[in-house]
């Protein structure tokens, strides 16, 4: 028996999902062990083995093809500023690029913060000015070397940095993307004089035009690289000691896994890789149930996130903003705001208006009802007061919630000052929180040119399924799906992933483009792809290469990525003409008819290659639908639940998810309790359990 | 009613009316309605006193600084025109 095992390491819990050859899913869970995450990972795997009912745990572990996710080491290192002592070498006269940034200092700030001009400041640099060295050399836009590298000066720079005990160095010279010879020569000098140092070359980490963003990417990579390396080497060692023979594969922010060596070389790829797992899981699930347009939403304790899958393809971005810096890295596109179960409800003293968030109560003290000392009412407290949550059955019965304390907190802090009762206040908190989330989804989809009405909404996160039908309804969405794997959707993404390498390079070509040059640029990238995938053990038959071009109309600003059909055959004039027309179509779809200035001509800016090493996907077992399934067999009881439609409490059926069989259908109102979340079905909606045991809610049905 | 006026100056009111005084040494400069700038000790300096990159202003502008007559606290720094015969431009 062969198993596919995915382990998702979170802040509090480590989840493990196992799929066997027959497509049965088993879940394991353990507490995360921040001192050495590998331990918690092994615990979760053992828990899954136990749940599988296996006698021989070790045999299971040895036959597992294992995937891990680098948890949040990269993100944490950046946020806590615990990275390597990092220096940067830049072209003389241009050392301040990383400090000047591009202006735009309000990127990543909330609107009120952004409007408060006198209080604005730039993010603290990861490499302070005294550790930025300037080197005499210069390359121009054509790649011509105008000033050669001053070797003596370079050696002095290396010696200075060694004396300062620098652990990691980023090299980012102007126009290294057009000609990397000086950067490579500089790297050689470092390797010769300082063999142990962690080196990041901008021409390798982010071979794209734009010295600020390229430097920022290089610096991030240099800063977190050493820590990520140490973490991953340790992980591999611990796994081996415990009998795991499979090579761990690490999730990247663009939704694909890479081996440990490749990850270490591109440490930036691990930043915000957590959400990537979840979105991949959504894509996989979507393909199982035939849904190609998905808004994947995740409402956790503090943050609400939304990503989009269109025509089965995950929406990506190539210049994400991380901690207020723009970097050049492929990433799944995710929009987020501070809104979650732990968001605090408060009254603005100057205006008397009720507000929800963005401040949250976090995990500690958490919502008032958790009993960990929280005193400010939160969204989860409202959910409890309104009857959505069950005080006696939370987190699968692992935790009791204190309803009275939630009532008191809402009454004192919100209801009394507003002159209303606590139910009205809780309902207000609920509605405001939902409006924040639907507004974010609206804003995010408009920016991408999507109409939310054409999508189904997947709801994840602890608090998601309580609220999702409301925030989806606001947008005109017709179907909300709470996946069976909601509790482990990160791990589900892992096990459905392929090995994916991304390559890219800036080369500015005006149309008509020289076919020779076009093919040469791609060949170089495709060559790298084959080298990497072959050394990762893939045969040609399991390698899929897709080439794309970032293009735009001349004098216009918006770029679109247009793919060639998958394959590596030489590109002909016919092929490019098709891509150019496809660009015209895509542009009109995205930006409206007549919006493209076609007469100005087009230009190519970036060459991209996505190389996929296809892995065997788990086959998920689907159950047979029972046409006469009776929801009552799953009825746990009833309780009073508040619904806006009734402006009051209504006696509502409460179902046990474990006892609902595929095919069961029931109309709202209704509550479904699962070990990890609560699903609220509103009065005018209808819920169906599908063949995979996902809960499908049809709004207004 | 007492309230700040700017860095190092405040307005305070007593039985006799409202006054402007220095917050460092409590020296009263003048009544609220009067122009406290006229009471200050005043110096005119070459613009390069503000830094080396001000050299382009030499010959055209001067640096005017106003100080508290009591303790010498710096109250104002401003660029004023240098008139051709060496006199400075109009004070406020």
């Amino acid at each position, binding site marked *: 028996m062969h198993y596919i095992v995915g382990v998702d390491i979170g802040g509090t819990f480590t989840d493990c999902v196992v799929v066997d050859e027959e497509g049965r899913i088993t879940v394991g869970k353990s507490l995360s062990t921040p001192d050495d995450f590998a331990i918690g990972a092994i615990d979760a795997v053992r828990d899954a083995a136990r749940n599988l009912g296996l006698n021989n745990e070790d045999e299971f572990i040895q036959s597992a093809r294992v995937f891990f996710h680098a948890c949040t080491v990269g993100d944490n290192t950046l946020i806590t500023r615990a990275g390597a002592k990092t220096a940067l070498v830049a072209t003389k006269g241009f050392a301040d690029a990383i400090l000047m940034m591009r202006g735009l200092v309000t990127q990543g700030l909330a*609107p009120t913060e952004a409007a408060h*001009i006198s209080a604005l400041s730039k993010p603290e640099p990861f490499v302070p000015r005294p550790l930025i060295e300037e080197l005499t050399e210069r390359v121009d836009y054509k790649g011509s070397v105008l000033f050669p590298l001053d070797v003596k000066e370079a050696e002095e720079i290396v010696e200075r940095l060694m004396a300062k005990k620098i652990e990691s160095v980023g090299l980012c010279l102007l126009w290294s993307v057009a000609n990397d010879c000086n950067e490579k020569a500089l790297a050689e000098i470092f390797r010769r004089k300082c063999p142990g140092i962690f080196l990041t070359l901008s021409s390798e980490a982010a071979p794209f035009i734009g010295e600020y963003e390229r430097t920022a990417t290089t610096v991030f990579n240099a800063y977190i690289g050493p820590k990520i390396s140490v973490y991953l080497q340790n992980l591999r060692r611990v796994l081996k000691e415990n009998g795991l023979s499979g090579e761990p594969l690490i999730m990247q922010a663009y939704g694909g896994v890479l081996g440990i060596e490749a990850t270490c070389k591109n440490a930036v790829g691990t930043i915000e890789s957590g959400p990537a797992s979840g979105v991949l899981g959504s894509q996989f699930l979507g393909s199982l149930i035939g849904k190609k347009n998905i808004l994947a939403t995740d409402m956790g304790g503090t943050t609400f996130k939304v990503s989009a899958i269109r025509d089965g393809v995950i929406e990506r971005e190539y210049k994400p903003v991380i901690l207020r810096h723009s970097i050049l890295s492929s990433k799944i596109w995710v929009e987020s705001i501070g809104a979650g179960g732990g968001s605090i409800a408060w009254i603005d003293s100057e*205006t008397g208006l009720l507000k929800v968030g963005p401040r949250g109560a976090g995990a500690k003290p958490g919502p008032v009802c958790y009993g960990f000392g929280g005193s400010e009412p939160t969204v989860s407290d409202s959910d409890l007061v309104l009857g959505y949550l069950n005080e006696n059955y939370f987190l699968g019965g692992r935790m009791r919630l204190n309803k009275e304390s939630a009532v008191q907190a809402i009454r004192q802090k919100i209801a009394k000052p507003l002159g209303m009762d606590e139910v009205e206040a809780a309902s207000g908190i609920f509605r405001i929180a939902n409006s924040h989330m639907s507004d974010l989804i609206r804003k995010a989809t408009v920016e991408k040119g999507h109409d939310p009405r054409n999508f189904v909404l997947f709801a994840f996160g602890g608090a998601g399924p309580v609220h999702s039908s409301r925030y989806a309804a606001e947008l005109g969405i017709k179907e909300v799906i709470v996946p069976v794997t909601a509790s482990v959707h990160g791990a589900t993404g892992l096990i459905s992933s392929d090995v994916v390498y991304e390559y890219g390079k800036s080369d500015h070509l005006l149309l008509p483009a020289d076919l020779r040059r076009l093919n040469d640029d791609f060949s170089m990238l495709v060559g790298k792809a084959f080298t990497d995938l072959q050394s990762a053990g893939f045969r040609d038959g399991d390698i899929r290469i897709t080439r794309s071009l970032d293009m735009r109309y001349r004098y216009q600003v918006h770029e679109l990525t247009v793919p060639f059909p998958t394959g590596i055959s030489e590109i002909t004039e016919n092929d490019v003409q098709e891509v150019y027309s496809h660009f015209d179509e895509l542009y009109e779809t995205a930006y409206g008819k007549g919006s493209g200035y076609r007469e100005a001509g087009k230009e190519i800016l970036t060459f991209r290659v996505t190389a996929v090493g296809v892995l065997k996907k788990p086959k998920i077992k689907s159950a047979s639908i029972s046409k006469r399934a009776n929801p009552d067999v799953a009825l746990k009881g009833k309780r009073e639940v508040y619904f806006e439609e009734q402006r009051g409490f209504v006696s509502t059926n409460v179902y046990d998810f474990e006892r609902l069989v595929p095919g069961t259908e029931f109309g709202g109102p209704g509550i479904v309790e699962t070990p990890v979340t609560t699903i609220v079905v509103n009065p005018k909606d209808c819920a169906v359990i599908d063949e995979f045991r996902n809960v499908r809610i049809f709004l207004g049905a | 009613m007492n309230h700040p006026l700017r860095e190092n100056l405040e307005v305070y009111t007593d039985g006799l009316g409202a006054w402007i005084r220095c917050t460092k040494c409590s020296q009263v400069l003048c009544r609220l309605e009067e122009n406290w700038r006229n009471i200050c000790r005043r110096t005119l300096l070459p613009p390069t006193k503000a830094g080396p990159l001000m050299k382009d202003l030499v010959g055209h502008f001067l640096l005017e600084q106003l100080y508290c007559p009591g303790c010498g606290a710096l109250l104002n*720094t401003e660029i004023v025109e240098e008139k051709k015969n060496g006199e400075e431009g109009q004070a406020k």
Partner: protein
Amino acid sequence: MTISVDPITFEILSHRLHQITLEMGTTLERVGGTVNTTQLHDYMAALYLPNGDVLSAGECMARHAACAGFAVKRIIERFEKDGGIYPHDIFLLNDPYLAAIHQSDIYMVSPIHYRDQLMGWSATFVHVMDIGAMSPGGNSPGATEICQEGLRIPGLKLVERGRLRQDVFDTLINMTRQPVMVGLDLKCEIAANNVAKARMQEMFEQYGPELIKSVSSEMIRYSESILNKRIQEIPDGLWKDRGAIETDERWNVVLTLRKKGDRLIFDFTGSDLQAKRGINLPYHATFGACFEAVVTTLGYDLPRNQGAFGPIEIVAPEGTVVNVQYPAPVSLNTTSGMKTVQYLSSSVLMQMLATSEKWKKEVMALSLGFRVARHAGVNQYGRYYVSTLLDLCGAGATSYQDGMNTGGYLTAHNVEWIESNFPFLYLFRRQLKDGGGAGKFIGGAGAEAALTVHDAPEGKVKIIAFGVAGLRNSGQGIFGGYPAAPSLLVLLEDTKVRDFVETRKYPEDLADVGGQRRLLPYCEFDLRIDDVLYIRSASGGGYGDPLERDPELVAEDLRNRLISRETAEDVYGVVLDDRSLVPDLAATQGLRKRLREKSSA
């Protein structure tokens, strides 16, 4: 505060109305053609009440929100009498004497009907690439009257009951040098207004027009009552300042701010008569500058709507530089006159804020503006182009933190982007050492760059130098703080830069290239292959006495190359160890005492 709509519904719907203006803005950014629209946010998108009062001006620049208030009212005045206002009409206006700041700002105004009843308006403007003025791009230094500054439209109907009037559209774009790009901008405005109409229809359907009306008037009352309250809390008083608008001539501007209760009166009486250069401001631009000064400090968290205009009154005598009348020109005003008026209106406001314990933390050193250069010519690919050279400015210091280095205004391009689009080679681009005004808190450093012509087929590039000329520009210090280094455009003529490039040696110091140094006034000239152009943006002014700056911070400024050794000692009075750069506190105390005695003697 009592409101007639329940607070929950108000919170949700007011936010949603605000979101609609953001969606309008996103549409402009996505469909618009020019960098101004798509990256610099130099546009406006807003919603209005049926009478033209601003309901929500989104997140655009506050001064544009103010002018927007005038645009709709002008259209109503004109078309109520003659022509009619019907569902799915869209109107166009760009007359600076009526609502625009200058002609390049083209307004589109669209009525929003629900079941044939006029429920409100939406409006946008974008800054177009060309407007058919004397000079390409619009800013025309040679114009002496408004008729030399391009099309001027007091109001016309561009879309009639949903049908675009192609004859009018073609006529308008035909008069510009960039008909396709201008056409695209007009189309994106139509699209943005259509988005507003569609979304408002949904709102009316979902919530009913009565509720939306209640929420709308509540939003305006909300901003007005809070802003009034905040102003009321500040001590009454009177504050003055004076300044000048300079090109190669000079015009004086005088401002007195009077606060009584919750009223603010900005009085510009005494300012010079209007000029025969395009530096003049129309009334609404002056209003906009004053409004922006108030709302970005006292009201930065408040929705921008008619209510926020309430407490503000402007006295600007007709026929002066701050209230221009026909036939005086305006095309240069955003880079000259506006900067002066923005400075003055902020300056008097800062003096007012300083008198309030609660609001004095908003006091910030201000800037008198910066130099701008347009460049035009044939690039390395053989294509003619026109573009602008602008770099990042340093912000003024406040009473509790240093000014931000190279943070504004909005954005600047990478050197690599510039070198890949234009025939230039940069010798350097960096933060300006000794740029920020000295003070207890130092002003933010601006940027400096030097460039030369590279691979230009014609061997030259035309440069048009304008912006805030004269040497009294850039950040000014506040409350004792020192002024920042001036913003400059300098031409080094007939230099040895070619030798350096040919022998592949890097000029360590700009002085090494030699040549004749010329501080550039307002002018046009050709930058040739032996010339070097030096550009310096504005830095921020300082706050307070530099002799009070923490010596540790001065040492850090030195380590961060924001100041020189000389400045550390001569201006800040800090004595540092030669090698470690650690401050010698005792020696510093002594030096500072001596410097103080010398100064105030």
